Each structure stands twice: as C-alpha cells, then as structure tokens.
C-alpha cells in the first residue's frame, strides 16, 4: 500500500478578481521507503506542493492521505527540511535536535541519547553545544536533517535542502543523504531544481509544468542502489535519463521566459 497519497490537490492564490492558479489537479502516490524528487521550472509551485504535503499550507482543493488516513497537524508523521536551514539560532545544536522530542514529551535523558545518535549519524560529533551561527552552511543543513529525523517520522520532506551550500559541500551532503536513507529507510520527497541531483538521488522523478503546476511526467529511475554518485554520473544510463528529463523540462522552462 502507498505510504503517501496526494489526491486532487489544487492551489489558487489571490482574490477572485486576480487569481493565480499555482497548482492544478495534482495526483500521485509514494510507496514506503521510496525516494521521489520533484523538479520543475522556478515558479511552478513545487515548494508550495511540498508545503501542502507537510500541512504548512492549506490547499484550495484536494487532500493528503498518509497510510490511507487524511493527514492533519495533530498527527505529524513527517520531518521537514527547509532550504534556509531554519535552525533556531537561540538553541544549541543538540537542543535544536531535541526539539521534536521535547514536543513529544520524552524525558531529558532519552532526548539527549537520541539526539546524540543523530548527531553522530550526520557527522556533527563535537558540535553539540555550539550555536547555529558558529557552523558552516553545510553543517547547519546536517543539523537540520538530524532535527527532522530525531523524532523518527516516516516521511522526510526536503525543500531544496542543498540549494544554499557550495557545490563541493553539496556533493558530500548528497552522498550522506543517500547513506542516511539506506540506514533509516525513510520515505523521502525531495524538491530540487537540479536535474542531476534529482536523478542521482531518486527512485522516481516527477516533472511539474510551469504555471499552473501539474504533473507532466512521472519517470522511474532504474539505477542500482546503493549508488556511488561519482561513478554513477559517468554511466550511459545516467546520461540518457538526464537527456530525457531535460527534454521534458526544457519545454516548461521555455514557457517561463515568455
């Protein structure tokens, strides 16, 4: 059975005289442990779609089902990683990571133990008591991932998580995300504007059309797992996927320049 079902989602912004249809009739499902990327031209509403899945925005129409049950804020079963880190600057790294557990009323000792495990998982050992502004962008994003994972949600929603780090850090973080995914077996929905990143990481790539956003194609990425990203990029298969995704995407990107 599907882990997540996105049913008939539409999103209309603005008032009746100046409406902007951001998303129209989005339907797709994601199985447990699947890694699905959403790509599309800027302004297609891919982040909006992720916010709707994460219940941070109410859609104009449609519903989100998790394990067959309509999702609401009361029963949160996802972790959200934002593009701009979103760590609380007034909390140390470990307190940031403990936050979701604190909300769930876990004891202080238990919170600390779990937080330390996740700090180790994302490779931030030794930085527990630092404040976010003392960390580099890549380290902040690792901490943000640990924070989203610490309370053990089934689904990880990531909104261009590596969009604001430099390209070298980005490659390292991508590799580590794949490791984390293999270890934790989460279901991941990953929004990105990078075609290469989407193909390299995912089982499936959804391409959204330009305004109003709807699903143009749903491409299954049949590449071996676990993957070595460096080798993968050189393979014939990777390049033909890249070509295919770009062909679809280009039609939409062209519309944005009109």
């Amino acid at each position: 059975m599907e882990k997540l079902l996105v049913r008939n989602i539409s999103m209309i912004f603005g008032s009746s005289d100046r409406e902007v249809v951001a998303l129209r009739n989005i339907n797709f499902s994601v199985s447990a442990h699947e890694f699905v990327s959403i790509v599309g031209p800027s302004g297609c509403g891919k982040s909006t779609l992720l916010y709707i899945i994460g219940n941070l925005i109410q859609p104009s129409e449609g519903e989100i089902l998790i394990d067959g049950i309509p999702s609401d804020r009361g029963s949160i079963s996802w972790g959200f990683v934002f593009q701009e880190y979103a760590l609380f600057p007034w909390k140390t790294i470990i307190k940031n990571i403990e936050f979701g557990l604190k909300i769930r009323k876990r004891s202080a000792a238990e919170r600390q133990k779990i937080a330390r495990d996740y700090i180790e998982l994302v490779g931030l050992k030794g930085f527990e008591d630092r404040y976010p502004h003392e960390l580099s962008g890549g380290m902040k994003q690792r901490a943000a991932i640990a924070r989203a994972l610490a309370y053990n949600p089934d689904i990880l929603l990531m909104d261009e998580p590596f969009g604001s780090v430099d390209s070298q850090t980005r490659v390292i973080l991508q590799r580590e995300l794949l490791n984390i995914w293999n270890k934790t077996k989460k279901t991941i929905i990953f929004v990105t504007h990078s075609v290469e990143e989407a193909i390299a990481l995912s089982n499936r790539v959804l391409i959204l059309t330009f305004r109003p956003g709807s699903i143009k194609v749903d491409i299954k990425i049949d590449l071996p797992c676990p993957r070595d990203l460096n080798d993968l990029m050189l393979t014939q298969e990777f390049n033909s996927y890249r070509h295919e995704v770009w062909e679809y995407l280009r039609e939409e990107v062209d519309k944005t320049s009109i």
Partner: protein
Amino acid sequence: MEKEKFLRNLTGPILFILVWETITRLELVSYFALPPFSIALKTLFYLIIKGSVFLHIFHSLFRAISGLFIAIFFGVMLGVVIGLSKWGKIIASPIFEMLRPISPVALVSVGLFWFGLGSPSIIFATAWGCFFPVALNTISGIRDVNNIYLLSAISMGADSKTIFREVILPSALPSIITGIRISTGISLIVIIAGEMMFAAKSGLGFLLIDGYYRHEPARVYAIIIIIGLLGAFFNTVILKFQNRLLRWRKGLTI
C-alpha cells in the same frame, strides 16, 4: 595586550581632566561656572567620608529601579498581548502614539496630585517614561519573528503554547532587552529631574538643587560625577545581563 589597551583608552579622559583643571586654575572661567576638578574631587571625598550621600544614592537608586521594574513588568506583559493579537495593535497603537510624546518629567506633577510629595510621584513618572520603550520594542520583537522559525516549529508538531515559549519569546528577547536598555537611561533622567523639582526631599537630584541654592558649585559638580558613575554602572549591569541572555548571538552582526 589587554592592559595596554586599557591604558590607551585612559588617554582621552586624562586629557579632558587636565584641560578642565588648567582653564579653571588659570581662572579663564569663573569659579561659580566651573570649579577646578581637584576641588570637585576633594568635595566628593568629603561627601563620601561624611557618609550622608549614600542615603541619597540609595533613595535615587531605589526610585530608578522601582520605576524600571514596574515599567518592564507592564511593558513586557502588554507588549506580548498587543504583539500577539491583531486587534491589540489596532487599538493600542494610536493610544501609544498619543501618550508617548508626553515628557515623563511632566508626569511628575501629575504624580504629585495623585500621590502627594515623596517617592511614589517620582516612581510613577519614571515607570511612565520607561514603559514605552519596553512595550514598543516587545511588540516589534514579537511581530518580527521570522516566519521560517514558526513554520519549522509547526512542522515538528509544536502547539501554540510551545511555539510561544520556545520560539516567539526567545526570538523577541534581543528586541525586549534593547527596550530595557533605552529605559535605564530614561530612568536616571526622570528621577534626577523629579528630585530637582523637590518632589522628594532626598536623592541626588535634591542634592544638586540644594547645592545650587547654597552656592556650592563644587558640591554640584561632585554630585554630577556621582550621577555619571551611576549611569556607567547601570550600563555595565545591563550589558552583562544582555551578554548572558544573548550568548547565542555572540559574533553575529545584526
């Protein structure tokens, strides 16, 4: 290195005192306008040895701190309520804009009508003057919480009570402390002025005006030095307090 820097920073004040001493000793200005620094300092020692000045310092401090605390209490409470509610700001803003420009010193006279002669009238005016910076900075601190922090707390399932305690309040804290810092300066101004208006027969302001009527400029300048030191003390305390509470911002340039 630290010591060297400290000594270097003393150059300005020493120069200032030297100029003061020289022009007064050369009688370039009259003794009543400005007595020599050394005489002011001698009077200051005399006041300290006599000891009665400490009671006046205590009275002034008590009034300043009482007024400040009342202002912080009501300022933060009202600021939070107004900052969180949509209607709060709509109703409160025009009232604040109307009342804020009134000089708090003027309110001493209102205090005298309400409370009679004595400390309460001065404390009332001080609290009035200190209330607005605290309240207004609390309101803007609460309203300016970055949306991404709210979203990330919501995404982890935080309820509104947790969001207030763990996100809104700490995020507004730098702004609240700024308000408190502005208010400490105001509190000293208002108490000195109030005491000079004979609203109470004690305090540093009272000693100042008393020294004037007794034609003792050296005493006036000695008291002014004490007031200056008191201001510096207030500032140091608030900076320590700020650095302690805002450790997480150290090194951040905002």
